[in-house]
């Protein structure tokens, strides 16, 4: 693996230790109670031996003079970032602990392992005080000096500088919190009894969220999403092709994941991006953002959007990739709406701006025989009892366009600028005219199209198909998750009709037959992140109306 490019210290405080302390004093009554107050009793244990100091600089001086270990010189030479500093401290401590020497030609590779994020000493004061160390000299220095000179002349600049420093301090603070969380999570995760699902069920308070957020803390789900080029290209193309909309704007990225959309926005010229996610992945986002030189533009905040405190009152644009299976599974859109109502400027833009939802009846005898009829005879045994759940739950599958037996019906449009949470539970009529003869109606599929419009005023027809949008020469951008486009990680929501109850009645239908019914989305009482989909359907030639419900959980 190639050495990562040297990182600049832009994430470390660029102020001197004293001016930082001043700001701390100023901010004391503004809710910094989480900060560790710098007590006189702080004890710095020497990196190299057991001696204890009350001042980190004295301790480092001791290491330099007694043991020829110049920590400040090392971090300078290796151009370490915040995490690098922490790893270096822990690396040195672990070497000393194991009775090994510190290599003369120490390189970043020696301590790049994530394990060095874990403190060797409990409550290691050195780790808490890394920000107090003198600035690493480098390119920034001259910039700093220039700024200082300018400020002497201009009191306005001075005020601006103070708020700049406040922001930086806040960032460092958050960075440190996230570091503490990272360490805590790493340890907690290892202790978790993965077999404890039964235990969890008996716990008093229901928690629909922790599984949801932790499911996004691994690499592979993000790899899947990033490699979904239909999805990621659509956001990229809209943002890069409409740089005029983003230039100089403040953007909020709700559920930022690895930070990709935030970086698109920063690259497109946004003056500031605030990226919020409640999953541990945000630690990686922060690193990605830092490595790509956007640390001064993008602020990462870990927490629920409803709970974190944004550094701004209003934003110009909200960008979010909140869509779930069947659009609304996982209920992240509720949070986006909440963020819009609280933070978006009255003339602000939602990206994407519109969603059209589609339903179509399907007939797929191959799928039915492979996955449902299969259980009738498994190595000579009857396993039909395994069929039960298949009809109870909505499935996520990529259905070929050939399985559709009518034109799809656009049953709902959500305009992101105006939709409210109550619009997310609904009952809508739908209809379809069969375009082919079928032996049996096997079920229904649901998908959505996303549209990215340049203004709040633009209208997307309720029957607009994303796959035809670009060809029509219309402005903006769109993508479909339906069978008419390339498969996305959302695939389609598939609701299979339970044919095991009805006995021997032929359900064959002819091309031209009319189907109609109602489609309902509801949120189950026992899990706010799940979804219930109900359908009714009736053929024009048939008196009887059928109905069935499916769960997504």
């Amino acid at each position, binding site marked *: 693996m190639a050495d990562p490019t040297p990182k600049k210290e832009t994430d470390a405080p660029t102020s001197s230790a004293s001016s930082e302390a001043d700001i701390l004093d100023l901010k004391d009554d503004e809710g910094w109670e989480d900060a560790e107050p710098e007590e006189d009793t702080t004890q710095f244990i020497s990196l190299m031996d057991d001696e204890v100091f009350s001042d980190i600089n004295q301790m480092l001086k001791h290491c330099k003079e007694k043991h020829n270990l110049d920590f400040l010189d090392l971090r300078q030479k290796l151009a370490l970032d915040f995490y690098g500093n922490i790893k270096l401290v822990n690396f040195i401590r672990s070497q000393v602990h194991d009775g090994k020497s510190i290599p003369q030609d120490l390189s970043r590779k020696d301590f790049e392992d994530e394990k060095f994020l874990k403190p060797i000493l409990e409550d290691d004061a050195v780790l808490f005080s890394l920000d107090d160390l003198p600035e690493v000299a480098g390119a920034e220095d001259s910039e700093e000096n220039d700024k200082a000179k300018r400020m002497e002349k201009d009191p306005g600049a001075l005020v601006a500088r103070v708020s700049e420093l406040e922001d930086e301090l806040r960032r460092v603070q958050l960075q440190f919190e996230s570091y503490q969380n990272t360490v805590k999570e790493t340890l907690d995760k290892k202790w978790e009894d*993965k077999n404890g699902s039964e235990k969890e069920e008996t716990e008093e308070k229901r928690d629909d969220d922790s599984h949801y957020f932790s499911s996004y803390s691994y690499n592979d789900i993000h790899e899947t999403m990033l490699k979904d080029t239909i999805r990621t290209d659509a956001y990229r193309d809209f943002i890069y092709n409409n740089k005029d909309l983003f230039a100089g704007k403040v953007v909020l990225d709700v559920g930022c994941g690895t930070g990709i959309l935030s970086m698109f926005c920063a690259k497109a010229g946004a003056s500031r991006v605030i990226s919020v996610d409640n999953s541990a992945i945000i630690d990686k986002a922060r690193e990605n953002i830092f490595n*790509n030189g956007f640390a001064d533009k993008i602020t990462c905040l870990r927490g629920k959007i409803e709970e974190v405190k944004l550094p701004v009152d209003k934003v110009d644009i909200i960008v979010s990739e909140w869509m779930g299976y069947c659009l609304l599974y996982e209920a992240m859109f509720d949070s986006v709406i909440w963020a819009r109502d609280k933070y978006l400027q009255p003339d602000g833009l939602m990206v994407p701006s519109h969603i059209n939802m589609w339903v179509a009846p399907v007939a797929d005898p191959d799928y039915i025989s492979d996955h449902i009829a299969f259980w009738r005879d498994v190595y*000579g045994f009857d396993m039909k009892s395994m069929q039960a759940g298949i009809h109870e739950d909505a499935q996520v599958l990529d259905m070929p366009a050939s399985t559709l037996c009518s034109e799809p019906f656009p049953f709902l449009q959500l305009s992101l600028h105006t939709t409210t949470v109550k619009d997310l539970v609904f009952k809508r009529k739908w209809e379809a005219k069969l375009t082919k003869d079928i032996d049996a109606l096997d079920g229904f599929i649901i998908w959505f199209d996303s549209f990215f419009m340049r203004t709040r005023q633009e209208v997307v027809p309720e029957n607009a198909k994303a796959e035809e949008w670009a060809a029509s020469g219309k402005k903006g951008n769109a993508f479909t998750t339906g069978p008419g486009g390339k498969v996305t990680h959302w695939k389609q929501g598939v609701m299979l009709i339970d044919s095991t109850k009805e006995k021997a009645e032929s359900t064959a239908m002819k091309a031209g037959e009319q189907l109609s019914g109602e489609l309902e989305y509801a949120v189950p009482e026992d899990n706010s992140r799940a979804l219930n989909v109900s359908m009714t359907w009736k053929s024009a030639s048939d008196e009887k109306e059928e109905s069935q419900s499916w769960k997504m959980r």
Partner: protein
Amino acid sequence: MADEKMKGMEHSEVHYFNSYNHHGIHEEMLKDEVRTRSYMNAIVQNKHLFKDKIVLDVGCGTSILSMFAVKAGAKHVIGVDMSTIIEKAREIVEVNGMSDKITLLQGKMEEVELPFPKVDIIISEWMGYFLLYESMLDTVLYARDKYLAPNGLIFPDKATIFMAGIEDGEYKDEKIGFWDNVYGFDYSPLKHTALTEPLVDTVEIKAVVTDPTAVLTLDLYTCTTADLAFTSPFTLDARRDDFIHALIAWFDIDFTACHKPIRFSTGPHTKYTHWKQTVFYLREVLTVQQGEQVKGVLDNKPNEKNKRDLDVKISYKLETEDPTRQAEGSCEYKMC
């Protein structure tokens, strides 16, 4: 079993399988013909061994192996599984008219009470990815020590892990190199994590550059849980001039008690199984010539804090006269 097997899947898929009570995973296992057919043949073709015997099925899942045992003439079969799938298994056993022959118990092997003090045969499909990841072998060994009658039989009774080196430039680039440039951005923090996560995937036989070599053989009659942490030196002989991007591991399973021994392999040279192969990417690329050797050590142990995770360490050294191609290193992986 279903719960264990899910661990190796994409998390997005876990969501999905959870959503219909793990049927998908049982479907996948049953449809794994190499697996299911080998068990079926080992049991049904050896009626002389099963006739009138008491059989214990450890981790019975949908009870397919238990039903095979009944078909082979077993006097009684006890199926044990922790998962709620056992409720389905009960229905299945019932409709197949075997309720009087099969007793299904839900719970941990260590906690359930068997209706027989000893059993004549233990059958179990306990293998996980890389044989040992999330495997139920420790449960099988517990059942052996507590319940297996002297001279009792175990189906299967032998497992062997193999390794080989593969050329995999294109896919390594797709999986690992991907993080170097994600839509124009440097995502290297995620690359580091990706390199420490072994990949479960199918490897084409033509990608295999070295002869395979066995690194661990477990005899289920004699092995103990201590054997599941092991350090094995290995030597891989290069078959041709090529590059090695990764080492892979797979396993073979033997039913030696059969009249005609039955064996199946999960290697790249044979039919697909749901275990696929396990790929360990190396940080560097080895440039090997035919006849040269890669020597190394495979170290595997359960993670100290979470025994279900595996800590795997592979050190390797390319032995060559050519100083420009000499390579030596070690990589740590975590299966979790």
